[in-house]
């Protein structure tokens, strides 16, 4: 059994396993954000029993830091590019005798750079080959297929990056740091709840952001209520829904859902070019 902390890794593991003998455990409920989900003791016990535990790294799923997991069965899939992870804002504080210190955050949605996703898939494949001999037969071919699919997404994202060059995008949540860096996009972020109708103050913050940055595009992390899209359109924003897929999509899989998001961005880029 391979346990994973997010859906992209679960998808990679399912593709790489290639046999029903190896199951993939992704215990996060569909309505929860895997980045902030907290496992129960029973969940941790189940994860501890896995042959391999695939971590995303980059601070994703920080419950891992407080849980006891066997080192021999852990694989940090972003370790190979740990030097290039994106640091986020930090907060400095002090208490007791420890003096002043800070908690630096790290952008954790690493797979939105599809080259990084391919590296993560390779790390996972190497660990699976070592820990689960049952997957060894044909593993390299399955990895090659998966890498080809991810690199096709990468190529499509490159085209979108080129098409949207010079355009400022606003994301409803800070999830797209690696996507922006990999494909040369300018993305500024809000901190809206996924799928919820923003409050007036949040709309005001969006207007202020548009004034300050000249943003023309709004990326929704999850499909919002219809009236939210209408209100954003009234502000003059082109819009696309781009779920980062930390959790399993309601329909399709990682590849089809990601293609749909990129297609939506591609259409939007075309519209902007036509205008």
């Amino acid at each position: 059994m391979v346990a994973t902390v997010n859906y992209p890794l679960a998808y990679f593991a399912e593709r790489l396993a290639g046999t029903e003998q190896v199951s993939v455990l992704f215990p996060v409920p569909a309505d929860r954000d895997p980045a902030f989900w907290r496992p129960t003791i029973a969940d941790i016990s189940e994860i501890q029993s896995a042959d391999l535990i695939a971590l995303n790294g980059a601070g994703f799923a920080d419950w891992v830091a407080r849980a006891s997991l066997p080192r021999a069965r852990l694989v940090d899939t972003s370790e190979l590019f740990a030097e290039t992870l994106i640091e986020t804002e930090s907060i400095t504080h002090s208490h007791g005798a420890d003096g002043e210190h800070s908690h630096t955050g790290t952008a954790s949605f690493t797979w939105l750079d599809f080259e990084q996703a391919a590296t993560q898939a390779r790390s996972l494949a190497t660990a699976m080959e070592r820990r689960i001999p049952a997957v060894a037969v044909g593993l390299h071919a399955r990895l090659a297929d998966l890498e080809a699919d991810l690199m096709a997404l990468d190529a499509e994202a490159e085209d979108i990056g080129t098409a949207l060059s010079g355009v400022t995008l606003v994301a409803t949540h800070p999830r797209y740091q690696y996507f922006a860096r990999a494909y040369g996009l300018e993305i500024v972020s809000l901190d809206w709840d996924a799928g919820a109708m923003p409050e007036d103050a949040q709309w005001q913050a969006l207007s202020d952001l548009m004034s300050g940055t000249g943003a023309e595009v709004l990326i929704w992390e999850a499909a919002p209520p219809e009236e939210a899209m209408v209100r954003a359109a009234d502000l003059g924003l082109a819009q696309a829904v781009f779920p980062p897929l930390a959790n399993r999509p309601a329909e399709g899989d990682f590849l089809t859902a990601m293609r749909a998001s990129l297609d939506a961005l591609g259409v939007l880029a075309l519209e902007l070019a036509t205008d």
Partner: protein
Amino acid sequence: MNALFLATAYLRYHLWRSVILVIVAAVILSVPFISQTLLRGSEEALTSRAEATPLVLGSRGSRLDLVMSALYFSEEATAPLTMAASEAVWDSDLGLPIPLYTAFSASGARIVGTTLDYIEFRGLELAEGRPFAVLGETVLGASVAGRLGLGPGDTLVSSPENLFDLDGVYPLEMQVAGVFAPTGTPDDEAVFTDIKTTWVIAGIGHGHADVINAAEVEAGNVTASAALIEYTRITPETLDSFHFHGDPDGFPVSAVLVAPWDDRSGTILRGRYLSQENPVQAVVPSEVIDDLVDRIFRIAALLDAVAIAVGAAAAAAIGLALFLSWRLRAPEMATAFRLGAGRYVILRLALAELGLILGLAAALAAVCVYVVWSSRESVVAWLLAL
């Protein structure tokens, strides 16, 4: 039969003198057997555990102290390493590193902070409960659980290191998640927890009430009062507030057990720590323990000779006591002689008394030897953990 009856009656009449004679004779008879049992048991325990541990990394210094603290959780403290030494082994892909942090104790038992890999490495099985799952949980060795009367759901508090170190290590209340089945090794005498929990005890990680509000975040600098309450107990409610400061590679470990993937990997790993300039040394425990066992048995041979001499002297003292006792009983024997008891009957009476004393002493010695022999594993584990 009459001689046996009279001897029994005499010994019962002089009960305390008889009891002392029996005990002294039993001690003389049992000590060599007990010392041999414990010595052989120690040799077996030392050797088998050392042979089951291919390699130990620790700070350069006494190899024996390193092995004794890493394998037997003894109190010999070696200078701590950092977690970087463990990660270096992992990064080398030559073996599995299992870090140990054994700086603290709880209710007289060593707290062994490690990873779950240790359980697999030593083949430990749970008698009750489950392995530790989150910060603050422990699994007890069988002897510790028995001695303290603790089981899953109970709590155990780490011992403060220094009562006068007000800014130092605070006791942490830990939740018992499980108890290991007895193994007859020092693992029975230890309290196991995640190494991150021992870092919390060391003050490297801590949990506290939220110090941040929106305005302070905006200002980018949050200062909390020194009176801020730090949690001394990790509960589901406070777990999320626990965090660590600094680079994990710099966090302390007492030693790192290493299970190389194969012989070649083990040789390469040992080669990496040969330089005297390297502050980390790699030790093959079986080499150190073989050397120690050789020394112990050389000393043991000397002790055996001393024990034989002391035993002979004590036996002579007992003989003298019996002889003097018979001299004191000369009028009694003369009366028996006048009543018609021949020299042979008196000799039988003397032999019956001696036989009873030695028989009782042999029985008592056998019971003592059996008790030590049957519990030799836990006695040896306790001795090694001292």
